[in-house]
């Protein structure tokens, strides 16, 4: 059936969801969906929303994507501007504030208002096409889901800000405040406003800033994980005046540098940004070189974060298991190989990292450093061709095994493995399957934990199912269920 091969685009989905298709068309759509797990799950999600809302969301996302594509080109320019801005701030504080504030304020007020207008439902239909760059960026922020954007306080500014800023600098963790927040506290103004900063009942100032600047997910508290939105925000702050303005309002010193840092991070996002963000909060307010350390982060020392990389290419390992040694909790590294765990009183944590194909290792982490966990490849399994692990939750006398032992399975795989056609593999690829071996030896619930692609997964499953039968695991009571993870290597 042709429908199976064809990709079902958004319009077709909408037609389907809206019930505009005939029974026959519906069937062919469904048939296609059945053949692809991505479609299956997506449809499941989409069916929970009304078609009208889906459409609205789709439009808004396309819009955002378009803007995103457009914006990217200005990135370089912005980072330069931001750098200049921050340098200026460092050197000529007073003048800047006097000079720029009035201007920028004029600019930003209408901006925020317009944001407000379209805030609630209209994001699908942001009509204003061409606007000042700043405005566009701000809109984007809004899109990103800030629930509320109270108009930036109009009465802000004033000469006293300078003193105020000095004050805040002196308050160590003095939560960097953001405009809107200040607003909430009281419609106050000037230094009074700034003093209010500290007591704000928000979780942590740094975090707030991060959020605010990321401007995405205000409610979700995404901090460390999302470096990207920070980039956008960095840009939003870029035009010089604005940067100054913000700075003044925030009454916050290291901020400019952080901005800069963020923008830089944007330039080389992958490793830098992430690590930076996960590092300890340092109130490094004397604007010195060590920008990285000033990056916004969760100030408390109760989390230790790190990044897991492979010693082979120093690339992050995604999905590596991180077990905390003193507890049973575990996490898995994210798409950037990052993770974080709770720290003990000494601001340390000991974790055991494991990853298929790598040597399991124990690592001592501390909140005071960038924890890079370099994992060494475990060459044994790579040469073995296949290796299995058993359920970690049970105690077995013997784990489930292929008939004839692992060697028989290995032999079978060696003899029968086929590199999926049309696929060239660079060196070695591997697939990790997990499946149940029930107490009667039946294999069920096969799933792919890692795979370079569908054809490899299928081949691995084919090998598993056509290979030797499996003997169930045994504990003291006899045969029992086991969950096996199997690692199969595809060699060139």
């Amino acid at each position: 059936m042709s429908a199976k091969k064809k990709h079902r685009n958004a319009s077709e989905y909408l037609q389907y969801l809206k019930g505009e298709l005939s029974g026959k068309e519906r069937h062919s759509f469904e048939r296609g969906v059945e053949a692809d797990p991505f479609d299956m799950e997506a449809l499941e999600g989409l069916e929970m929303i009304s078609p009208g809302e889906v459409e609205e969301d789709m439009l808004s996302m396309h819009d955002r994507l378009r803007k995103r594509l457009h914006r990217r080109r200005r990135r370089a320019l912005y980072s330069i501007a931001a750098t200049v801005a921050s340098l200026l701030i460092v050197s000529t504080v007073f003048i800047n504030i006097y000079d720029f504030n009035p201007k920028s304020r004029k600019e930003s007020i209408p901006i925020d208002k317009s944001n407000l207008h379209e805030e609630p439902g209209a994001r699908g239909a942001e009509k204003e096409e061409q606007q000042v760059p700043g405005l566009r960026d701000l809109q984007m922020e809004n899109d990103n889901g800030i629930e509320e954007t109270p108009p930036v306080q109009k009465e802000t500014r004033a000469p006293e800000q300078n003193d105020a800023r000095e004050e805040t600098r002196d308050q160590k963790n003095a939560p960097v405040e953001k405009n809107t927040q200040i607003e909430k506290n009281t419609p106050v103004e000037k230094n009074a406003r700034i003093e209010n900063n500290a007591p704000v009942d928000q979780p942590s100032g740094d975090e707030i800033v991060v959020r605010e600047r990321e401007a995405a997910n205000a409610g979700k508290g995404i901090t460390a994980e999302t470096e990207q939105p920070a980039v956008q925000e960095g840009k939003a702050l870029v035009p010089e005046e604005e940067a100054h303005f913000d700075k003044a309002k925030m009454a916050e010193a290291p901020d400019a540098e952080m901005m800069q840092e963020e923008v830089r991070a944007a330039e080389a996002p992958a490793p830098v940004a992430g690590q930076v963000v996960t590092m300890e909060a340092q109130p490094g307010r004397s604007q010195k070189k060590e920008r990285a350390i000033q990056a916004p982060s969760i100030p408390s020392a109760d989390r230790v974060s790190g990044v897991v990389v492979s010693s082979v290419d120093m690339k992050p390992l995604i999905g590596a298991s991180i077990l905390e040694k003193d507890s049973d909790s575990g996490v898995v590294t994210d798409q950037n190989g990052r993770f974080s765990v709770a720290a003990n009183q000494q601001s340390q944590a000991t974790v055991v990292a494991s990853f298929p194909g790598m040597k399991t290792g124990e690592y001592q982490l501390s909140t005071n450093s960038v924890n890079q966990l370099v994992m060494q490849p475990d060459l044994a399994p790579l040469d073995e061709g296949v290796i299995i692990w058993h359920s970690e939750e049970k105690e077995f006398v013997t784990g489930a095994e292929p008939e004839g032992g692992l060697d028989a399975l290995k032999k079978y795989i060696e003899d029968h493995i086929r590199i999926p056609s049309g696929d060239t593999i660079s060196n070695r690829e591997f697939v990790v399957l997990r499946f149940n071996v029930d107490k009667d030896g039946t294999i069920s619930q096969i799933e792919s934990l890692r795979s370079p692609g569908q054809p490899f997964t299928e081949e691995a499953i084919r090998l598993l199912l056509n290979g030797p039968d499996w003997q169930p695991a045994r504990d003291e009571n006899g045969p029992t269920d086991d969950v096996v993870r199997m690692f199969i290597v595809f060699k060139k």
Partner: protein
Amino acid sequence: MLEISGKNPDITDEELLRQFNRNGSLEALGALYSRYMHLVFGVSFKYLESREDARDAVMQIFEKLIIELPGQEIRIFKSWLYVLTKNFCLMQIRSQKSADGRLEVYKIEQEFMESESEMHPIDREDQSAEADLQRCMEKLKEDQKQCIELFYYQNLCYQEIAEQLGINEKKVKSFLQNGKRNLRICLEGKNVG
């Protein structure tokens, strides 16, 4: 309205990927991504259960793509994107949980991985093993068999099947899923002897 996704439908995913890899063309990546944005959104919504979060996720995943794509050898972009999307959503869920919620989240991931499946024989183009298929069909539970028959052989849609059998669509889908799973096990020779 959603023209972007149809932009140059003739250009393959692979070609767009190549363009992006060659000269970092964001346009190309954007065009590619917009083909799947609705799927990313649907999956994100399924996990995050908020339209707002799902929309944000869609944008954040795009940012991730920009970072993670270079240097990756990707065979099937769609599958790769699927995995990326799911992982991203899980991370989101995890980051929303408090420290003591971590274990629980960890379990969610385990469960969730199980839903990953591969192309089922019955969905393939070449249903060469027609006889085997029939034999295995006979072994299915009645509900599952009926649903598979109506869907794959009578070419009815979920709705129609639901009406015909007097059950709801959800049930139809789950019978289909379970039926397919059992079929697969049978076809692979495990239960047949």
